[in-house]
């Protein structure tokens, strides 16, 4: 029989895995081009609303909507990259922050206009509802599914990065942009593809998040802070970093809510500040 703290741990891990899927794309694109994309969670929100629409209007099964959410977010990112982001690759941090926040604001308004401001919920397939008994704990089936998806994504990303040619290009460009382009790697194009991939993953995360945290137009900003914290603590450009930072934040947040509700997010901000002061590039970032 496992004590209840393991149940809390499990919930924290599941939440952390969701945050990982949401954050990993931003970490890689930031590490690659130092492009500060604060509209990242708007792509997540898009993925969420695509899923809601497909289920409610077209009666698609939930699992089928997941690749659709990924592709919709990736496609949107390709359009935005062509029209806006491309011109700001070498712009100042401030300009990038302002443009992407502007896009995020517009996304909030558009979502509210089309979907209203109420929180959306969805019906997940029966297999994912309910819970499974595990050594005296009752583990939510959806959360088990979430952890599984996140681990699959991690394996595919790490494998892709290590064993594919594109992955090697990404690694080279993250490591040393100037040298990579000197070697003939088209860094801008690598970024565009990586950006699409990362935004697609955000969209997937948004779809997965609906059953855990709900979906409303505020999603673009509500989780942005956590995503930014994970990316900066984990280290820009590091999948491993995002993974562990997301776990850390996820577990801390859930455990905090259970055991120290008075503290709120205080502890997370403090931990982030301390880690950043100690390791400005993040725990796994390049020095």
């Amino acid at each position, binding site marked *: 029989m496992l004590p209840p703290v393991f149940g809390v741990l499990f919930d924290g891990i599941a939440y952390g895995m969701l945050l990982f899927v949401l954050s990993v794309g931003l970490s890689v694109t930031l590490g690659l081009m130092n492009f*500060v994309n604060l509209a990242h969670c708007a792509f997540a929100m898009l993925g969420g609303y695509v899923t809601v629409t497909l289920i409610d209007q077209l009666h698609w099964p939930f699992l089928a909507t997941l690749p659709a959410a990924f592709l919709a977010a990736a496609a949107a990112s390709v359009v935005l990259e062509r029209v806006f982001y491309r011109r700001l690759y070498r*712009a100042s941090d401030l300009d990038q922050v302002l443009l992407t926040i502007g896009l995020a604001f517009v996304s909030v308004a558009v979502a509210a206009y089309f979907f209203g401001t109420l929180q959306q919920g969805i019906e997940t397939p029966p297999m994912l509802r309910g819970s499974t008994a595990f050594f005296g704990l009752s583990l939510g089936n959806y959360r088990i599914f979430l952890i599984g998806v996140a681990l699959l994504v991690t394996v595919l990303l790490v494998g892709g990065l290590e064993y594919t040619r594109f992955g090697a290009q990404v690694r080279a460009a993250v490591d040393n942009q100037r040298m990579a382009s000197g070697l003939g790697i088209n860094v801008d194009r690598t970024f565009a593809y990586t950006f699409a991939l990362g935004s697609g993953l955000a969209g997937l995360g948004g779809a997965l998040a609906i059953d855990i945290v709900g979906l409303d137009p505020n999603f673009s900003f509500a989780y942005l802070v956590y995503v930014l914290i994970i990316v900066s603590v984990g280290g820009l450009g590091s999948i491993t970093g995002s993974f562990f930072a997301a776990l850390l934040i996820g577990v801390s947040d859930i455990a905090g809510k259970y055991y120290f509700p008075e503290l709120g997010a205080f502890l997370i*901000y403090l931990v*982030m500040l301390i880690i950043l002061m100690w390791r400005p590039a993040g725990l796994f970032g390049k020095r």
Partner: protein
Amino acid sequence: MTSVDSTATPQDYLRSLSRWHPIEIVFWLATLVPFFLFPDYLSLASQIAIAALFALSLDIILGYGGIVSLGHAAFFGIGAYAAAIFSKFVMGEPVIGLFAAALVAGIAGFASSFIIARFRHFTLIMITLGLGLLMQEIANRAHWLTGGSDGFQGIDIRPVLGIFRFDLYGYTAYGYALATLFVLFLATRRLVNSPFGLALRGIRERLVRMPAIGAAPRAHIQKAYTIAAVMAGIAGALLAQTTQTAALESISFQRSADVVVMLVLGGAGRLYGGLIGAVIFMIARDQFSGIAPQFWYFWIGLLLITVVMLLPNGILGGLSDIYARWRRK
């Protein structure tokens, strides 16, 4: 650019850069107009003056020093709460309260400047964001000190300098806020045209060249950050004193984000950019206040996108480009 005649010395040239332009006089005279033409809007006018002061304080570090801060409201809020606490427990005279708030905000600014000065780019943005959020959490949790989400209770503001009572229409409030803004504006104008202002611009333009000319950029950045914190704290104190409330809103991320938008809208690094941006932003928000918040977000978002893509130097920058092009003809 000022035109240069051949008999002018370099010193004359530099002096000409800090000379008062007639349009500035027009601007400041225009700030007196609400007293006569818009007496119903005096409370909005004092809100604008306070926002303008806050934006001016951010301009010092962002426009002139190149430091992107997403947590500047920390000092605004500290100033607001400091002024509130001072009025309740020490004395209600507002001008002395301003000095007290300035001191507290300045200490906070100085302390955090040690951290701020060591980082750049994304890490710096995250640290300013983190510090701001941390302050917001502390203000939220410390009910005993700040009143938490209920707001601070018991502000007791006496007449300004013992003479000017705060009236219901807002004449005193606006006069007080405007006078403070003007005084601090003069100080900022002097700072911008001083050797220190030049050093800040050097830091913004090419940080890596500064040590190579014998400069210690960290000391300059710390000084600028502390000064900006003092000014932001005074702006926050003005808010608490003129509205007789101090609430979490004053230390929130929303306020930090709004002031960045105001400054960028008007044009950072141009002294008047924050002021113009504050006027436009606050009036627009007042007009939009009846409509659902989504519309506000839509237009602000669109505005930000437009400014970044088409008007990188804000409205003042755009105007000065048009003026320069017109003069060349």
